[in-house]
């Protein structure tokens, strides 16, 4: 803790600088509210339910999309990782679609799915799918051949090898996919809500910008920051529960 003192002092100074620059008019701009004002608006809107309901709806869409996308990615990844031929046919398609930046698929999808939940869930699932697929395939490929042979001589069936050997051995790699796809899900949710605006936290930001309500805008960004932080925390917790052996064994 002692080591961080200077850093925390710096952070507090920066926040004070923000407050002072707005309060004493060092930055002359309509768009530069004081930190206190932003916190106040956030507090009021969270309490009144205005912001909390929006956040809850966005998170619900994000979670549904995330679960669908990662399940599909992991399942297809297990398949492609174990079946070479299928891999040869499908991987080129995946590689062709994967580099498309996700905002670009939203306009055509609006034509089919409208601008409501279906669109946003689909877009989140789509963006999560690729990192999960790639990391699962990589994990399955890198399972040490000796482990699989050991299981075979111990009379393990193909299905059990997949479940008891390949899946746990690939889990660290799958988790590293989650490390990428979890923040990506949040990003994509916001992107989709901004482009196909009608509701959600992303839409709130865009609307506040049009309406010149900087306090509302910053308070939405603040909420997203907290959510991003919590997601990371959640991930670390899960990682410690699911693969406690991994980091320790790597250092051994």
């Amino acid at each position, binding site marked *: 803790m002692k*080591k*961080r003192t*200077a*850093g*925390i002092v*710096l*952070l507090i100074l*920066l926040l004070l600088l923000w407050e002072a620059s707005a309060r004493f008019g060092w930055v002359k*701009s309509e*768009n530069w509210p004081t930190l206190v004002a932003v916190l106040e608006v956030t507090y009021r809107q969270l309490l009144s339910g205005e912001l909390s309901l929006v956040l809850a709806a966005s998170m619900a869409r994000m979670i549904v999309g995330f679960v669908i996308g990662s399940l599909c990615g992991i399942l297809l990844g297990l398949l492609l990782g174990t079946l*070479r*031929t299928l891999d*040869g*046919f*499908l991987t*080129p*398609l995946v*590689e*062709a*679609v994967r*580099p*498309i*930046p*996700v*905002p*670009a*698929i939203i*306009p*055509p999808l*609006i*034509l*089919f799915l409208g601008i409501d939940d279906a669109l946003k869930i689909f877009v989140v699932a789509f963006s999560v799918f690729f990192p999960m697929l790639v990391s699962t395939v990589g994990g399955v490929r890198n399972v040490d051949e000796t482990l699989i042979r050991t299981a075979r001589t111990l009379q393990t069936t193909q299905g059990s090898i997949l479940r008891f050997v390949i899946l746990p051995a690939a889990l660290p790699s799958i988790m590293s996919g989650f490390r*990428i796809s979890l*923040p990506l899900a*949040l*990003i994509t949710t*916001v*992107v989709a809500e*901004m*482009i196909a605006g009608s509701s959600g936290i*992303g839409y709130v*930001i*865009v609307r*506040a*910008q049009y309406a010149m309500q*900087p306090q509302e*805008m*910053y308070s*939405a*960004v603040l909420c*997203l*920051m*907290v*959510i*991003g*932080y919590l*997601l*990371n925390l959640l991930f670390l917790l899960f990682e410690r529960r699911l693969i406690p052996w991994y980091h320790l064994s790597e250092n051994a």
Partner: protein
Amino acid sequence: MSTATKALQATLSFAAVLAVWELLGRAVLVNAVLLPPPSLIAPTLADIIVSGSFLRPLLETLLLFAVGYSIACILGVAIGLAMGWYDRVYYLLEPTIELLRPIPKVALVPPLFLFLGLGASMKITTVALAAFFPVLIATIQGARGVDPVLVNTARTLGAGPARIVFRIVLPASLPLIFTGMRVSLALGLIVEILAEMLSGEGGLGYLIVDMQRSFAIRQMYAWIIILAAVGLFLNFVFEYLESRIVYWRGK
């Protein structure tokens, strides 16, 4: 599997997808207006390419992206090395970075409109912001993870601190730095396209939204294909550079 088999399999599956897409449209299983078959998109795409009208928006997107991305990479690696190598710098900056890192950077696009307008400086800034953090974090990790044996060997061979940072720590962290830069590449492109779409000004992102709003569906798909090609090309360049620069990375 040999290269020839792989190429054959890839060709077959692309052909299959195009054929199914075409048939879906022909058989009126999907709305051919909303999803025109490839045979209708291809001429539009050819027009755009032959007339050269793809060049200006493409260059605009690429240029702004490249500037923002380069700034992010240079700053990320420089600050990352300083933080990874000097504990005091690390502890000084860490709280601030931990606070800013979890913000989904796309959320900063509208606030930046207010300060920087809709033009180039806004786009460069957002791309740089989005691409900065993955590079920074990867560089710190890389620099902190350098094997002390390597550093001590260099020390006993008489290398000074500057040499150690640039000749030992930087090269040893490069594989991780590239991993971070790869994440940044994708993120930066997402933010660039988003900024173009929201600002309604210039570039491929703007064109895709614009075509959709004016219901020029074929053009919209043509521009998406061009953008996909850009993504593919950037990935390819990235992989090539990575394989040349960290050729020693084993398999």
